[in-house]
């Protein structure tokens, strides 16, 4: 089982997570995503969607269970190793997590600067990705000078700019109108078509209905695979 054979793979085995001793957030969650998979993660408010995503990019440690990213078990990684794994994962945070004192451009460029991308390359790629999400005119604004939806699109741009192997998007369209939501989902579809594994946590039933993809549903800490969107209402 070499990592070459499953280069963009997420495998999760018997994952348990709880913040308080009495309440289990995730119970015995297991699943496999191959390179190029696209999956919606849904479930009621507080079901553990954000928690599961945070475990996947090692922002939380599980109580027990294993998480393999590209065949490497990240649950035992050091800080430095985690930093490097994160560079191959693009994350759209539910609360955006933009740096308020950096411009839109600098917020997105940050991801490329970390990996030492040359300056010219950074400029080109940041501009391209900002244009994709439709905020290329607000390049030099600061996040607090943007509307909620504009901030969310900056967060999406940042997740895309590094051509990550995996994209984890947490409610990426909660502040967007349906038109822009469709555009964003099309971008995810395109990236996915090029082999990127995509996982989108969302409440939006319209999304599940319109883009007929695999659906993981979290309920009482348990994960059910492939439940059709319609039954979920």
């Amino acid at each position, binding site marked *: 089982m070499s990592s070459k054979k499953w280069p963009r793979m997420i495998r999760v085995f018997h994952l348990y997570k709880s913040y308080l001793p009495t309440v289990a957030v995730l119970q015995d969650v297991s699943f496999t995503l191959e390179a190029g998979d696209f999956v919606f993660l849904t479930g009621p408010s507080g079901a553990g969607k954000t928690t599961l995503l945070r475990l996947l990019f090692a922002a939380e440690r599980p109580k027990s269970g294993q998480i393999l990213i590209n065949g490497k078990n990240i649950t035992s990684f050091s*800080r430095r190793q985690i*930093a490097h794994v994160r560079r191959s994962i693009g994350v759209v945070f539910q609360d955006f997590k*933009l*740096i308020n004192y*950096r411009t839109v451009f600098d917020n997105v460029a940050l991801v490329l600067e*970390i990996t030492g991308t040359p300056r010219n390359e950074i400029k080109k790629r940041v501009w391209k990705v900002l244009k994709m999400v439709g905020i290329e005119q607000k390049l030099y604004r600061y996040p607090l000078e943007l509307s909620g939806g504009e901030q969310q699109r900056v967060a999406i741009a940042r997740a895309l700019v590094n051509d990550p192997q995996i994209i984890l998007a947490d409610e990426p369209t909660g502040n967007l109108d349906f038109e822009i939501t469709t555009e964003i989902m099309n971008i995810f579809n395109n990236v996915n078509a090029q082999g990127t594994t995509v996982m989108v946590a969302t409440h939006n039933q319209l999304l599940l209905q319109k883009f007929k993809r695999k659906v993981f549903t979290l309920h009482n800490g348990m994960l059910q695979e492939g439940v059709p969107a319609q039954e979920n209402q």
Partner: protein
Amino acid sequence: MKMTYFYYLLRSTYQNIRQHLVINLISIFTIAFSLVLFGLYSFGYLNLKKTLEDWRTDFQMIVYLEDSISKSQLNSLRHFCESSPAVARVVHVSKKQAMQRFRKSLGKDSSLLRGLKENPLPASLELQLKNKVKDMQAVENLAKQIGKQPGVEELQYGQQWLRHFFSLMKLLHIAGLGVTGFLFFVTVFIVSNTIKLSFYSRRDAIDIMELVGATRFYIAVPYLLEGIFQGLVASLLSVGAVYALYYYLVSWLRQSFPFLQGMVSLAFFTPGMLGGFVALGVLLGVLGFLVSFKWIRGS
């Protein structure tokens, strides 16, 4: 890749400083204040030390000679004294000279010496001690050796006065070290607190950078540069402030208290000292960074 990192460092540092101008100014003024305090203390200490050492050149050891001393004994004694490493200068005072001095010192009352038949005052050698003589022990050793020479009647060297003087110098030295250490500690404490608080206010940004894959080292370097920058600016400011303060203080002191003339001097303000100030400022910035970074890592 190297260029990108270099560019990133400079730009991040610049952005951090510009975006947190208030915190940076606070930090800079805190370091500068500490350095000014430290500088004023140094001036004061060095001046006081110099003054005390000036006073000290007045000290002398008087070797009273027996009336029966022979010319060759006197010469060999004089030679013995002059060859001692602690002695700077030897002056011979004859019985006649001693009487003349005594008469002078009595002033108007010298009339009462008129009735004297013979001169009861002894001849003496007056030894000026060298500046480098640092403690009482050396002086007492010298006294013991001279006392053993033939033709010496008695030695007088203000034992009490000298002992006090050396104790005072030692006290001053120890107090100086103590105060310096204390001030240094306080300064690093204050600077590290300021940097800690500035880290604290950037915690969100640091967390976000970590979440998108930056290593701790990558995140930390701009803050180190910021600390260096603060130390640099602060030291330059404080050099100016200390100079100005001291300049006005000295002019004022000279006008108000003419007897302090010899004490106050600006000579101390050499290029080397200026470099030392800058180095100290930068060191404080770096130390503050290290202390606070350790603290941030822990939390």
